[in-house]
């Protein structure tokens, strides 16, 4: 048997050596190590041998099996290496265009709206929504716009035939949310707003995000803190921010917030009218009269509110000069956003 084994081993060596590919190698493996292979057969035959021959035969067979396995493994590596070498010489034109389904695009204003919401939600604010067609009470009176006051000129209003108006800002949602809920409140209100002035730089409809926070002991420093946090997150940590006094009927003290001009970096250019600053939002402490109007006690709670122009932020982010780009819906423009 020893001689037979030696001969078989020689044959196996030869076959393995001459195998051209993995297929031939596998055939060799089956021939010797497979279920019906020579070595396997012999190993199962051990039990028919005399007791004293068994250990020796087993040892020899296992030795042979191991040798063949090692040879196959080595050959396999060799074949794979050869194949690899061949493949390495293959070449495709990787500059040909890729193919497959195309993605669509999200409207840039949706992207900005979602981002604004994400940042404020991260700070613990939640979303409240209100109707586009509002009552005069929610849009003006409750927000401390006195009747026949020139402040109303700040917001040219569309009137509907049923006595409602199209909201001129998202601030009425403040009134609705505060009337419905009790402090503490941390709310943002995104939505569409309408002004009936028509010129090149204005659209009769645009988007705003109103935000407000009401609690015991909320003050102007908090307003600055939250808005600066937002602006840094939105425009980058290095953004320069300026708060300056302003006037809105529903906040006092009121502020206008500017960021350092993104075009010239503050040196002055046509985009910032040489001032080095660009206005991004209006804000202030909620006027005590407004708090009273929704049934809160202004001696007990205080709050801040702010209003962001979404188109304005999108124009700054994407360096877009004309607001009309957002509503023309030119696919060549839209497809770049997702």
């Amino acid at each position, binding site marked *: 048997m020893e001689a037979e084994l030696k001969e078989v081993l020689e044959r196996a060596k030869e076959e393995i050596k001459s195998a051209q590919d993995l297929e031939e190698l596998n055939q060799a493996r089956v021939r010797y190590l497979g279920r019906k292979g020579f070595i396997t057969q012999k190993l199962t035959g051990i039990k028919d041998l005399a007791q004293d021959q068994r250990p020796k035969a087993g040892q020899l067979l296992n030795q042979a099996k191991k040798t063949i396995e090692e040879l196959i493994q080595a050959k396999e590596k060799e074949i794979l290496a050869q194949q690899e070498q061949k493949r390495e010489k293959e070449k495709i034109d990787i500059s040909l265009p890729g193919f497959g*389904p*195309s*993605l*669509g*695009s*999200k*409207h840039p204003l949706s992207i900005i709206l979602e981002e604004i*919401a994400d940042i404020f*939600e991260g700070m613990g604010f939640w*979303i409240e*929504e209100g*109707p*586009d*067609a*509002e*009552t005069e009470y929610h849009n003006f009176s409750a927000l401390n716009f006195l009747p026949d*006051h*020139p*402040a109303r000129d*700040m917001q040219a209003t*569309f*009137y*509907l*035939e*049923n*006595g409602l108006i*199209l909201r001129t800002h998202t601030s009425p949602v403040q009134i609705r949310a505060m009337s419905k809920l009790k402090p*503490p409140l941390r709310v943002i209100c995104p939505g*569409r707003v309408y002004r009936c002035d*028509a010129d090149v730089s204005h*659209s*009769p*409809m645009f988007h705003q995000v109103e935000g407000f926070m009401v*609690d015991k002991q909320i*003050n*102007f*420093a*908090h307003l*600055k*803190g*939250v808005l600066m946090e937002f602006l840094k997150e939105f425009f980058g940590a290095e953004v320069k921010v*300026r*708060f*300056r*006094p*302003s*006037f809105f009927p529903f906040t*006092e*003290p009121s502020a*206008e917030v500017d960021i350092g001009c993104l075009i010239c970096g503050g040196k002055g250019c046509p985009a910032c009218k*040489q001032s080095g600053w660009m206005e991004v939002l209006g804000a202030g*402490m909620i006027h005590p009269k407004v708090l009273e109007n929704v049934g809160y006690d202004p001696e007990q709670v*205080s709050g801040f509110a702010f209003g962001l122009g979404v188109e304005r932020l999108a124009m700054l982010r994407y360096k877009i000069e004309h607001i009309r780009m*957002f*509503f*023309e*819906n*030119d*696919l060549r423009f*839209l497809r770049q956003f997702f």
Partner: protein
Amino acid sequence: MEILYSWLKEYIDLKISANEAVEILTNLGVESSLQGAVPGSLLSQLEKVVIARIEKIEKHPNADKLLYCQVRPAKTAEALPIVCGAHNIKEGDMAPLALPGAKLPEGLIIKESIIRKVVSKGMLCSEKELGLSEDYSGIMILPQTAPLGVELKEWLANQDMILSIDSSPNRGDLLSVVGIARELCAKTNSKLKIPEIKIKEDLPSAEDRAKVLIEDYIGCPRYVARIIEGVKIAPSPEWMRKRLEASGIRSISNIVDITNYVMLELGQPLHAFDLELLRGKKIIVRRASAGEKFTTLDGIERTLSEEILLICDGEGPVAVAGIMGGADSEVSGQTANILLESAFFDPVVIRKGAIQLGMQTEASKRFERGVDPRFTDFCADRAGQLFQELAGGKVLKGKIDVYEKLFSPEPIRFRTNQVKRILGFSIEPKQIEQSFKSLEMKVEKKNGEGFIITPPSFRGDIKQEIDLIEEVARLYGYEKIEPEMPEFKMQALKRSKKELLRRRLRTVLVQLGFSEVLNLNFQGPKDPSYLGLKEDDPKTKPVRISNPLAENSAYLRTSLIPGLISNLAFNLARQQARVKIFELNKVFFPSEKTGELLNERESLAGLLAEQEVKSLWQISCSEGGFYELKRAVELILEQLKFTGARIEPVSDVPYLLPGKTAKIMLGKDRAGALGEVKPLVLKNFDLSPPVFIFELDIELLLSYERKAGSAFIPSRYPGAYRDISLMIDEELPHQAVIIAIRGLHNELISAIELFDIYRGKKLPSGKKSLAYRIWYQSPERTLTEEEINALHAKVAMRLKEKLGAEIR
């Protein structure tokens, strides 16, 4: 409001540059900017640009569009030949001339050159070429007073600047030079220099010459009149005209100019009547009677209502109070004696009147915002002084000053601790007191708590404690308030169902290749009929806007479809071969009852259209478009777990082809539709088929319970398939095959895949052949061949029985 900076400087005892003033004002909340200010960095670039005079202009001998000029660059120099392309110049004009060697900010280097065989020794410049503005419409023409031969940069540096102020509507006091000066003084703790009044009064006294009677003290709480006799009408002096013109007010005559000048200076609108034209030498202030007619200075006859406040003489109206005077009592070249009106009119009355008459004047703007009710007499004196100085008038003794009760501002309690509570910083009471005093407020200490503050009469906007808190913040400086993050108790917050759904929908549609569009919420009167809607369709009853910008945007939209189709037209016109868009937005329907809010429904619509293009991946759009959209709808419903949703044939959508329309059903409710748009509808938008759309009512989706269900666990045992090809009636839909097979209720049938549809000559007419691959798989074991074959035979039998299918 625009004012010359040099004018403002006369009222402040302070050496600050115009730029510093702008900065201080901006930080006080007075939006301001400078016009005509040229930055120093720019000035230094304007080397070798001089002020020159254009002596002679001829046509260029060799070029029709060019001029050949003689331009003198200095008093003693010879005129230089200059070729010029702009035609806005005339002989005698002063203009900037760039001499050889000049390097202009725009990068142009000037040298002596030959232009069309003619020598040109420099260049006349436009503002754009000098970097001064974007104006390149012509040569920059300088005033005649510009000094010949002086370097332009030197002259520019010494030009007076115009300070432009955009004050907020609550601050009427800032519509004057003195008002602006006051703010600057408050912040810098300097002294305001109010003009000193020196008048030499003569007898008789004013009261002997005219009478003033106020019938409506609500509309007119105070009326002051001065009488000036023997004025000489003439042009006003140069300095006054310059100041008025810089503020955009046309110079008329010394008398009219003085009233305007004092209005700009002190904020009090004045009116000068020709005393001799006031019948009965009388002023009566009263409301108009309804329908009363009056012709204003601009020559327009106006019909008045009872809300309008009138200034009348003994016989009838002579002015609309606070808004505009009348032609009959106007000061003219013949005027010698004047009644000067300085009054306080009620802001609301003036505003209502101005709106009713559609007139916004410099006067009404100031009255609406509130003038100083305690300053009325001072302003009359100031005008009297100027009449005396500049028109040689005799100011009669005394003033007629009519009022019921002089206005005195209410004292306001101010608690020091409110600064910390509202503003978030601490400040010494002493500093607070100082702030109030610098704002000309009366300060009384109140033990332990704070102060009692009485604001000055010109600050009508300060009515309560919060107004005072704002003043403290303003003077302290917003920039100095340290930002701080608020603290609060955490709460579990999840986005609203609506917002979550919106985000999912956008994501799914973008993944499917749709681009999101946003259209305005307006529609025109024709939009519903363009869609072929029937009259009883609620979409034909949109809500109308009373004051639309245009008729084609006079309604709130009831459908997203017209917008999408317009977007398609827009993009096809821009050579976009494939348009696949969606919009997620509100549509609006009238409220059920009057006085209620509208029925605002969030809606989703998508559109797909493809022009004939040859490309690798092209599918035939006339068939494929429908199924591409259907896939989108299926994925939306699947991904969002609307498990019970069905897509069923329907033919009642007015703008969709009846044979190519499906409705989207959620339980018993119809959530939307999809299909191919009718060619006649497309014709209304000048488009041609095929165009496919879908619509989904988001409010309905939101109302529908979504079942998360349990997750599908794939079998660990292999599945096997058998193909089957069956011939059935053309009328039978694919869905019938599915229903038939599913009707076996055999759980081992794991999938049914349609892989071919055949129609053709080989089949009898009215028949089609469908080929399916049916998968068999058990979650518990490997199925045997015999089992599978038996089951597949059952399927074939079922199809024969239920559909009369012929198995091929």
